[in-house]
């Protein structure tokens, strides 16, 4: 994926992808975020995640390490924090080629809902999305219809190596803290 050169809006370390999504939405950013995991769980899990925005709403996701786009790219970013974040602003038309990759697109609310786990941010993001990106909702379907696509969650659960790494790290942390907290004899 070839990204256009952009104007650096923000460069910092964030602990949670939620910060990026909320920031982009609040500023109505048209551009892209590059997220580089700093606390990589897997030794060979290098690479960066790219998320593009139009008016603060995510459009395309891609991960350079896995070379996957769309919802699985969001899953590839999961549990890798803290992240080095660079947020760039670009002219809307310069992202046209990138946004043409239909298979790299993500539904507007997916990153907020599934990757960040923030329902209200997801709702706000969907409201900010242009009407052609909102799936029609009939009253009968209510909020249950629309872009509640779970592809990112499924891709996360399909990544056995990452889940094994999350569990292994939690086990080690639990053992360390057991000693620190004086639960050592129990553990």
């Amino acid at each position, binding site marked *: 994926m070839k990204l256009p050169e952009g104007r650096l809006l923000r460069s910092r370390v964030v602990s949670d992808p939620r910060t990026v999504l909320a920031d982009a939405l609040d500023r109505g950013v048209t551009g892209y975020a590059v997220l580089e995991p700093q606390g990589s769980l897997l030794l060979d899990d290098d690479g960066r995640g790219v998320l593009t925005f139009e008016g603060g709403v995510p459009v395309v996701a891609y991960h350079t390490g896995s070379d996957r786009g769309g919802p699985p790219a969001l899953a590839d970013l999961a549990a890798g924090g803290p992240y080095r974040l660079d947020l760039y602003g670009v002219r809307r038309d310069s992202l046209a080629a990138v946004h043409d990759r239909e298979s790299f697109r993500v539904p507007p609310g997916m990153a907020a809902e599934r990757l960040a786990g923030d329902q209200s941010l997801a709702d706000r993001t969907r409201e900010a999305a242009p009407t052609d990106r909102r799936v029609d909702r009939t009253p009968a379907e209510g909020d249950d219809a629309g872009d509640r696509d779970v592809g990112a969650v499924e891709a996360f659960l399909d990544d056995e190596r990452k*889940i094994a790494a999350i569990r292994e790290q939690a086990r080690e942390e639990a053992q360390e803290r057991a000693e620190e907290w004086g639960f050592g004899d129990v*553990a």
Partner: protein
Amino acid sequence: MEAFAVASGKGGTGKTTSTLALGMALAEEYDVTVVDADMGMANLLFHAGLEDVETTLHDVLVAGGAPVEAAVYERHGMSVVPCGTSLADFAAADPTRLREVVATLAADTDVILLDSAATLSSRAAVLPIVLADRVVVVLEPTIPALSDGLKVQEYASSYDTDTAGIVFNKVRDGDAIERIAPKAERYFDGSTLASVPASDAVRGARRAGRPLIAHAPESRAAAAYREAAGALTVRDGDSGTVADRFRSAVVPESP
């Protein structure tokens, strides 16, 4: 007799709603005691209409404090032990006394449900998981909820606390839970006890200060919690033995 920690690792998954709903559903068959063991961010008292009570768990956990019986309230067919919300009271309390509280309660009940903290970052937060026999992990179909739920399970198993099962909460029709749940189950030691639909009844119950099953017994969410309780087999165990086990659990006193 068995003690369960209802835990999630992440906030906002609906642990307290789940604890009280599971408690009420289990109370149809068992003698149930529900304890707000989220001692730093207690909220069960609001869900159970107990915000004006005089004595709470905090008063029991201070040195020379009230006997636990003074903080037990009979509500909705259960014994409920609420915790106060004052940070000063939390600071004065000794969380490790929770062991003695649980041991005392265990002698006189079939099921103890410990509403646990939404974090694993402190000793007080992890203590309910250490003390419980098994943990019920409350999840949402999101990556952070699943990831934090897995961490809870690993912490629990580090302390020899098994996983009784998982509850998917706030599930909506578009969530493809029929695909997510089996995939998640591969990593959790317990099965999916229930998938609880997102429901306005939950907010209504919270506003009314009543447990969901008391407020909206006919709701789909209430039915799902009954299903979860039905899927939870409470292990037999002599209450006296369990109480002794809690008392002898190696939990150090405050530093």
